[in-house]
């Protein structure tokens, strides 16, 4: 399914309506701080309630006006995107914080080059990827650690 199709817009509209209703409910049930004797017009839930209503109205129009695009789908690789997304997610959410930053970055960059630089023979790619990964990790890490005095994760 294309993500800019009418079906995708309708599904999004339903999700947005659900979000809008949650926002409206959260704003309505939010503490009105009567104990602090605030002005009733300044309750913290006022704008969330308005946004909840607003997003629901927009979502209804989105649902009713959903239309398939006229242009053909662009040439694209979902596989490449998913692999890059998962590998990057692993680096950001698992490796960083659990491994020393230099090691995590070197593994990530080397892995990325090995996976995607398909123009080179496998052995050469692995060697170049590892060298590039170590260099990139060293330069980026040193830049933040010594030039910008950041305590690396």
């Amino acid at each position, binding site marked *: 399914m294309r993500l800019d199709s009418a079906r995708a817009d309708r599904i999004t509209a339903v999700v947005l309506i659900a979000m809008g209703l949650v926002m409206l409910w959260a704003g309505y049930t939010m503490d009105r701080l009567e104990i*602090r004797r605030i002005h009733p*017009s300044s309750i913290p839930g006022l704008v969330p309630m308005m946004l909840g209503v607003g997003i629901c109205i927009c979502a209804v129009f989105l649902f009713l006006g959903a239309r398939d695009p006229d242009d053909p789908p662009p040439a694209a690789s979902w596989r490449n995107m998913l692999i890059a997304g998962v590998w990057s997610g692993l680096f*950001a959410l698992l490796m960083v914080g659990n491994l020393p*930053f230099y090691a995590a970055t070197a593994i990530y960059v080397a892995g990325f080059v090995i996976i995607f630089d398909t123009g080179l023979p496998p052995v050469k790619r692995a060697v170049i990827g590892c060298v590039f990964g170590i260099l990139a990790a060293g330069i980026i890490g040193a830049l933040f650690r010594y030039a910008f005095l*950041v305590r690396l994760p």
Partner: protein
Amino acid sequence: MTGFANFGAALWELATFTTLFHVTWATLLGIFVGSLPGLTATMGVALLTTLTYTMDRDAAILVLLCMYVGAIYGGSRSAILLNIPGTPASAATALDGFPLAQQGRAGYAMGLATAGSAFGTLIGIILLVMLAPPLAEAALKFGSYEFFWLALFGIVISGQLTGGSSPLKGYIAGMLGLMVAMVGSDGIHSHVRLTGGWGELNGGIGLIPAMVGAFGFAEVLSVMWQSVPQMANGKSKGSSLPALVDLWRYRLTIVRSGVIGTLVGIIPGVGEDIGAWASYAAARRKSPERDQFGKGSTEGLTAAETGNSAVVPGALIPALTLAVPGSAPAAVLIAALFIHGIRPGPMIMLEAPTFIYSVAAMMVFATIAIGVFGVALTPLFIQVLRIPRAWLMPVVFTLCVIGPYALTQRIFDIWVMVAFGIIGFLMRQMNYPVAPLVLGIILGDLLDKSLRRGLILSDGDVTAFFTRPISAGFAIIIATSIILSIGPVRRFVAARNPFTRKARG
């Protein structure tokens, strides 16, 4: 005239070796970022912001402005050589730049683009010096009612103009940004809202991690999603110095595009791409060679490049005086200004009276740098465009990870970056503009506080929002914009618009 005297003094004060050093590397980096498809000006400014934490204020702002000016200009390189705009701002440039490159005039096209960008930025700087101080003074008269409408105006106009054929998606993106801004401690009573008991969210969602994710990680995913771009005509033939006679012939186009670009820049959250298209359309309407537009027109190329570059100083006018960004990179600049101890907004002329002139002077240095590098380093940038994405993207993503972390030293901000990266990618795929989302995050607090403060002042009477002249003006413009964006109304108006009819007929 005092304004220009202050501007001259700022130029003199900045003319030091340190300034030139920062201008050189930051503008080069900006051109590099802008010229690579997949790296945008917003992403460049956001990532560089994370590298400026330890710099002194003026040096930090200088390098960010050089990055911004350089990246918007740099987008023309790949637009001309590859028919792939390096940044969205250069989409109009590709229309005439690429046909010129195919005719073997790539060097000349890049030279003309350089001249157009330099003149556009200079026109914008002159207007910045002229308009920003009086605007800041006028903004001192703004109260809660006016600021509420101003914030809403920014969201609506940005949503409408960046949403393209579907303003509704622009509005939705803006509202999602406002919803994000509601998370955390509220600005009046410090009541913690919508955190679901998650302590990390008490301070709200950070703008820098959100922007780095929405523009950085989302770009990485988008680049990996696209098919590999092919070099269409990498050989630069001909001189990269534009002929003075051509520039003189297009003097009116340059001035007109510069003014249009600056005015587009002043409109909140609209950005460089709209500035380029508006200038291009105006040039086409006025040109005696309009049939050449789209086929390699040097006038079209000049108009587009002048227009997008003029947006840069234009976008800083509301950013500095109202704290409302004129474009997405200007939004990051606002965050950077706060980090470095400058509070943009109506008080800027009282708290830092010479700062606006310093900003204008910094942009002059950046403009000179793009002029020099644009002409001298054309062959180098052709090589830069050959860097494989498999090498570039992991480095970009590593910077996306470490940049937001460096500001707060919280792993949580890396999660926020990743979440906004996925959201940003999905929004692009579904044709939702990302700029209104960011504008919503920035303006959410202003909108929320102004609405509730206004209601307290009027004792709950909403008519106070419609009876003051500026508020009423904003309300009318917003209502008209929304009504005109409704499909049947838009078609009805277009059918009766003499310009539209003429174009069709």
